[in-house]
């Protein structure tokens, strides 16, 4: 009896018309948003793929069949079989295991980039949009400089200057990925700047810093989240591209892009060496795209 009552109580709490505290109000709102999101099958599929990526990355040692860098030249280039689910590569390493560990690298790169890029872009865009005038001009011209270069080329240039390696790849990708977020944030801020509730905040005597941080930025977050999610695929591909060119993760690191590059030579006869890492990249990108689409449908219409 109490087990049936407990979920009902939770539901009642989460759908309360008159919340009793700020935390309660936020939970109610989050629950309502989640319910709408969960009704979209494609978004759910995207979420499932992303969660799978996270789970695999976390549980890689448990799911793997051994050491990702253990070589055994005797069993090189073996096709997929019961022992080696995805076959082996040119150095006899188990591709399945390498893909599992590669998920960690991919996830790591993507997370680092997002953590660097989103706040910087948001801050630059909101400040430029709110202050206008000289600050806006200067910040936007700086943004334009970075935006003018094709992302991969600029990343290449940075990596070439800084030297290959995952950390430098992350820095390079971050430096090229932030401008679009600044532009989006600025566009939204310009629209919000003239609304009555911002005028009301100014009338309270709130400083511009407070207004930008507490009033403007939270409203730009939704479109940021959507854009970031949709961009993940691009970031993954850029990282893979760098890896492919040998400028990202260095061997023997099981980075997916590097794996594809190594498998190029064997693509006609031993297709599995390049195909499986390629498939992994594909699926993860698809997952983030679907998730981003689902988030956009849920977050944007509610915004105003």
């Amino acid at each position, binding site marked *: 009896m109490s087990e049936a009552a407990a979920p009902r109580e939770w539901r009642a709490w989460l759908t309360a018309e008159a919340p009793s505290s700020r935390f309660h109000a936020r939970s109610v709102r989050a629950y309502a948003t989640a319910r709408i999101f969960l009704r979209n099958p494609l978004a759910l599929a995207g979420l499932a793929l992303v969660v799978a990526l996270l789970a695999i990355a976390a549980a890689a040692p448990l799911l793997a069949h051994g050491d990702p860098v253990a070589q055994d030249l005797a069993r090189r280039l073996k096709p997929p079989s019961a022992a080696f689910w995805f076959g082996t590569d040119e150095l006899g390493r188990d591709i399945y295991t390498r893909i599992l560990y590669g998920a960690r690298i991919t996830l790591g790169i993507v997370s680092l980039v997002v953590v660097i890029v989103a706040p910087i872009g948001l801050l630059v865009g909101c400040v430029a949009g709110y202050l206008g005038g000289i600050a806006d001009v200067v910040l936007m011209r700086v943004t334009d400089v970075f935006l003018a270069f094709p992302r991969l080329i600029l990343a290449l240039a940075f990596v070439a200057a800084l030297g290959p390696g995952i950390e430098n790849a992350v820095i390079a990708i971050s430096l090229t990925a932030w401008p679009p977020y600044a532009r989006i944030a600025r566009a939204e801020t310009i629209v919000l700047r003239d609304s009555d*509730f911002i005028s009301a905040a100014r009338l309270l005597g709130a400083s511009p810093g407070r207004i930008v941080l507490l009033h403007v930025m939270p409203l730009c977050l939704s479109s940021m989240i959507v854009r970031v999610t949709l961009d993940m695929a691009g970031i993954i591909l850029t990282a893979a591209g760098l890896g492919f060119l040998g400028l990202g993760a260095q061997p023997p690191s099981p980075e997916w892009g590097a794996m594809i590059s190594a498998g190029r030579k064997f693509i006609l006869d031993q297709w599995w060496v390049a195909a499986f890492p390629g498939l992994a990249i594909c699926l993860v990108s698809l997952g983030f795209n679907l998730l981003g689409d689902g988030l956009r449908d849920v977050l944007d219409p509610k915004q105003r």
Partner: protein
Amino acid sequence: MIEVDRLTVEFDETRAVDAVSFRVEKGEAFGIVGESGSGKSTVLRALSGLNQHWSGGMVIDGEEQSQHRTRAFHRHLQMVFQDPYASLHPRHTVDRALAEPLRVHGVGDREPRILRALREVGLGPEHRFRYPHQLSGGQRQRVAIARALILEPRVLLLDEPSSSLDVSVQAEILNLLQRLRRERTLTYVLVSHNLAVVAHLCSHVAVMNAGRFVEELDVAALRARRTQHPYTAQLLRASEGYDRAAAAALVTFD
């Protein structure tokens, strides 16, 4: 309490407000009536400091004002906007909206003040943690009024406070505003296009057209239709409802 001397606001090449002067005594309610584009909202924005591109003289509560306002100034003068949905932050609960002014000015004991503010505008604790989209138009406007009054200002600027509301709700909000003014001896400057609303709340009225005050009069004179300028007479006639003959006699004033 408020003395405005030849206030002028220019946008690009037009004068939205052209050498407007008026006085408002402490505790009085002063109304500005005009149609859209007359410049009445611009006067309020200049008074509140939201618009900083004005010239002329402005003395509020004995202090000469410049284009920039100090934080202390905002404790004494607040504004209620027309659109109750647009004037509340969509992602802030009522509680947060009311706490913000207290936080900005470093005022303590927020909890009792917020509860009191809600009570005074006729809202209950069940509204405290709701978001604006969960409130009706009248309730949102009450929150906006509560927010404006929580710092206990002396002057309240009202920009068409009831125009966006349903008729039945309008009456409640107007009653609330009247009661609050009496209880707290507030000074109001009310802007509206609705003569009846202005006549109800205010004691003195200025009629505005194309950036200028064309006439200033007592509400008693307005009620008795003792007007001098033809524009005022025209506004009066038009607000009495549709009349075919009256409509034919309307003239455009530029």
